[in-house]
C-alpha cells in the first residue's frame, strides 16, 4: 500500500455546550488515513464519530488539535481559496438520507448544488451533463433528475446523497452510516458502488458504521472509539482476529450473526469502564504489535502481550 497520509488528525478535541455544561465530545483523537484506503470508525452511539467527520469538513469547530489534509492544516481559519479547495476535495455522505435531502428541491438541483456554489462560471449545459453522469455513476436513471426526493425508495435516496458527493470529484469521502437504513440487497449494491468508485477514481474513505460485519468487509484499518477517545486501532484483519481492549471485545461479541443456533447460545460480554484501574495506573497509547495500537496501562499491556503470543 502507498503509505502517504492524505489526512492526519492530531490530538483533536471538539467541545459542545456552554459554561458548566461544556463537555468534550471528542477528546484527544489522533489517526492518519492513507491515500486510497478505507478507514473505519466504530463505536457506541454518542461516542463522537459524526462529530469527528463534521470537524474534518469544517462544520464543527475544533477546540484543540490539528487536521492536516494533504500536508496543510485545515482546522482553523482559512483563506477563501483554501476553503474552496477543502470543500471540493472532502465530501461527506450524511447519516440520514431522509433528513439530509432538501424535500422541496428537485434531484438535479440537489445534486448540482455544491458544484454551483463552487464554480459560478459553468454553463447550464455543462452542469446538466455532469448531473446526468453523476446519476449514471450511482446506478440511477438520468430521467430521475426532475423528480422530488420523496418519490424514491430509501436506497435510491441514499444514492442521490452519494451522487451529490461524487459530482464534486473529491479525493476523500466521509461516509457516515451510509447503509444502515437499507435492506441487505440494496446495502450490497451501495457497498459495491463505493468499492468500484474507489478502484476507478482512487478515492479514500472514512467509513463510519454500527454494522461490524460491513466494517469487516469493507475497511482496511479500523479505529474503535469509546466516549470520545480511541481505545484501539489496527488493520481490520488483526483487529477482528486479536481484539485486545475489552470494549472492542464486547463490540465484536455483540455482532449478530445470521446463524440461529449460534445466536441462541451466545453470551454477551458487556463492557464496564470501571474494570480499569486508571487512577493509580493511567493508560498509554502504545503500538503493541506492528500497526496494532491500544490504550492500556502497564498491567494491561503485560496481559495483552501474553495474549498475543
Amino acid at each position, binding site marked *: 500500500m502507498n503509505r502517504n497520509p492524505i489526512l492526519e488528525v492530531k490530538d483533536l478535541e471538539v467541545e459542545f455546550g456552554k459554561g458548566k455544561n461544556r463537555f468534550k465530545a471528542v477528546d484527544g483523537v489522533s489517526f492518519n488515513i492513507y491515500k486510497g484506503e478505507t478507514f473505519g470508525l466504530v*463505536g*457506541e*452511539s*454518542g461516542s463522537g464519530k459524526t462529530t469527528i467527520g463534521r470537524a474534518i469538513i469544517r462544520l464543527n469547530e475544533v477546540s484543540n488539535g490539528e487536521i492536516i489534509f494533504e500536508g496543510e492544516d485545515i482546522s482553523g481559519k482559512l483563506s477563501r481559496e483554501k476553503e474552496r479547495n477543502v470543500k471540493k476535495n472532502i465530501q461527506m455522505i450524511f447519516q440520514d438520507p431522509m433528513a439530509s435531502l432538501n424535500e422541496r428541491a428537485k434531484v438535479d438541483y440537489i445534486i448540482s448544488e455544491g458544484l454551483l456554489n463552487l464554480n459560478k462560471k459553468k454553463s447550464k449545459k455543462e452542469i446538466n451533463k455532469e448531473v446526468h453522469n453523476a446519476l449514471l455513476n450511482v446506478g440511477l436513471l438520468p430521467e430521475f433528475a426532475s423528480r422530488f426526493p420523496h418519490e424514491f*425508495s*430509501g*436506497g435510491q435516496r441514499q444514492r442521490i446523497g452519494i451522487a451529490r458527493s461524487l459530482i464534486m470529484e473529491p479525493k476523500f469521502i466521509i461516509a457516515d452510516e451510509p447503509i*444502515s*437504513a*437499507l*435492506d*441487505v*440487497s*440494496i*446495502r*450490497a*449494491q451501495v*457497498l*459495491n458502488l463505493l*468499492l*468500484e468508485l474507489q478502484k476507478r477514481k482512487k478515492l479514500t474513505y472514512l467509513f463510519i458504521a*454500527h*454494522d*461490524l*460485519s*460491513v466494517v*469487516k*468487509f469493507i475497511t482496511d484499518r479500523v479505529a474503535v472509539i469509546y466516549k470520545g477517545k480511541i481505545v484501539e486501532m489496527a488493520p481490520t484483519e488483526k483487529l477482528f482476529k486479536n481484539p485486545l481492549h475489552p470494549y472492542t471485545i*464486547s*463490540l*465484536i*461479541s*455483540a*455482532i*449478530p*450473526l*445470521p*446463524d*440461529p*443456533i*449460534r*445466536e*441462541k447460545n*451466545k*453470551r*454477551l460480554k*458487556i*463492557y464496564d469502564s470501571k474494570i480499569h484501574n486508571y487512577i493509580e495506573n493511567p493508560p498509554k497509547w502504545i503500538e503493541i504489535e506492528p500497526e496494532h495500537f491500544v490504550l492500556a496501562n502497564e498491567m494491561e499491556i503485560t496481559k495483552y502481550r501474553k495474549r498475543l503470543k
Partner: protein
Amino acid sequence: MERKEKILEVKDLVVKFRLRGEILTAIRKASLDVYKGESLAIVGESGSGKSVFTKSFMGLLDKNGFIDGGKIKYMEKDLSTYKKEKDWIKIRGKEIAMVFQEPMTSLNPLKTVGKQIKETIELHRDIRGKSSKEEAIKILEDVGISKASMRYDSYPHEFSGGMRQRVVIAIAIACNPKILICDEPTTALDVTIQAQILNLLKRLKKKYNLTTIYITHDLGVVANVADRVAVMYAGDIVEIGKAEEVFYNPKHPYTWALLSSLPQLGKKGEALYSIEGTPPNLFEEIKGDAFAPRNPRALNIDFVKKPPYFSISPTHKAKTWLLDPKAPLVEPPEGIKNLNKYFGGKRDE
C-alpha cells in the same frame, strides 16, 4: 413450539392504497398463523409490505389505505371488519402493541417519560394516581432503567438512544398486551446496545408470556430472536418455517437471494452479491411468481401461474414451483449452503 395454539390468524389478506386516482396493492392475499408465546420474524425487501401487513392488525393503516378482502382473526373476532376508532381502542395497546423504529418520533418530547408511561397505564387499566405511578416506576425498572424513581421525571432528550428505546418498550408493555410487534426496534443503535435491547425483549417475552413479531432487515437479529421466520416479497409471504429451516434449508429463490447478499459472505476486494432488477410495480397486476423476472433460475411456469404453498416439513413451506414434484432439480447457490457450518465455531466466544 410443541403445543400450538393460534393467537392470530390472517387469511388471504388484501391491503390497497389509493394514490392520485390509482390503486396500489401492497398486500396480495397473504396468510399467516401466529402461535401463542412464539417469536416470529418477518423479513423482506424494502417496500415488500412488512409494516403495512402488521399495521393492519392494529387499525394503523394510513388514511388512504384499506382492507379489500381476507380476514384477521384474533380471539374469535375478525379485525378486518373493524372500522371505528372506538373498536380499535379495545385492541390497540391493550391486546396488540407496537414498538417503532424511531424512538424519538414515538415519544412526546415535552412530557416526562414517567408521565407518558403513567398515562398509558391509566388509559387502559383501572388504576389511578399513586398506584399507577408506582406501576410506571416498576415498569421502568423492568426495562432496565436504573434509579427508576429518579429517572421518572426525566425528559426524553435527557436519555441516550438506547435508553429512549427502553422507554418506548416500557410504554408498549405498560398495558399488558398479548402481542408485541417490534418494527426495526434496534436499527439506530450500536451493536452492544442492540444486543442488550434484544435480551430485554426476550426476557419480557418470558415474563409476560408475550407473543412477539419482529420486523427487521438484519438477519443476524432474526437469528438471535426468532423461533420462526416469514419471508415477504411483493406483499405475500413466500416462505415460512422455523428459523433453522429457513436459514439452513431455504427453498424460495428470493430467500436464496436475500441470504446471498449477506455482507458476512462477502470476500474482501470482490463485489457482494446483490439482487438484479427492481421489485414489481404494485400498481399493476402481478402474474405468476412475483420474483420470476429477477430470478435467474426461473421456470417457464413462474411467469404464468402463481405458485401455491408446497410443504417441506410440517413447519416449513414455500411458494415456489421449484418444489413441485414435476420441477427439475435446482440447487441453491453454493455460497449459502451450510450457513450453519460457515458460522458455527468460526470465532470462539
